[in-house]
């Protein structure tokens, strides 16, 4: 069965304390892996798309990496405004999209 699992469920960091979020997946025919940021009560905001193992993408303090079984979202020197829920999703060979339950990140000043 296609599945996406994110860890940890919640993470509290001090401002400037770097860390990584994990997304492990088992899918048949991965077409793409996506990271989104979601603020409370709002729609997910697109961050990255990764297509193949070994691929990396960066944006400001965020860097996403992909292996054959998992993806990491690295947050370098986070700021309080980085506090949000980070969602990982995959698209399968049959046009289905599967999301994880997210990691709730809180960055303390």
């Amino acid at each position: 069965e296609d599945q996406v699992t994110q860890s940890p469920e919640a993470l509290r960091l001090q401002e400037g304390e770097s860390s990584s979020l994990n997304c492990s997946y088992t899918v048949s025919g991965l077409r793409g892996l996506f990271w989104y940021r979601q603020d409370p009560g709002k729609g997910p905001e697109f961050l990255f798309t990764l297509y193949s193992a070994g691929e990396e993408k960066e944006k400001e303090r965020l860097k996403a990496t992909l292996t054959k079984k998992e993806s990491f979202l690295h947050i370098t020197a986070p700021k309080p405004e980085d506090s949000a829920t980070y969602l990982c999703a995959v698209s399968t060979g049959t046009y289905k999209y599967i999301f994880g339950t997210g990691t709730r990140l809180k960055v303390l000043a």
Partner: protein
Amino acid sequence: DAGVTQSPTHLIKTRGQQVTLRCSPKSGHDTVSWYQQALGQGPQFIFQYYEEEERQRGNFPDRFSGHQFPNYSSELNVNALLLGDSALYLCASSQTMEETQYFGPGTRLLVL
């Protein structure tokens, strides 16, 4: 460049009623997907529309149906509402042959 728009923003219905939610995709996008997001959970894929047809469907009952219009906008219909249908309903759009989806702000549905 307008992003994905959804209407209404909030809606309150009672059990057994029917509801229609609307979505306009991002400019240049022709594929629309709908998701249900319960509080504290990740979005659950309902279905995807492409070329005015349902291309793929998640594990949702037939009470959930949709439509895509020639201008690529879309509607989500839910019949015989249950309390458990209370959630944030998200619309996402993408371009043909592109996997990346962009989301709208969502419609918050409360069923009493």
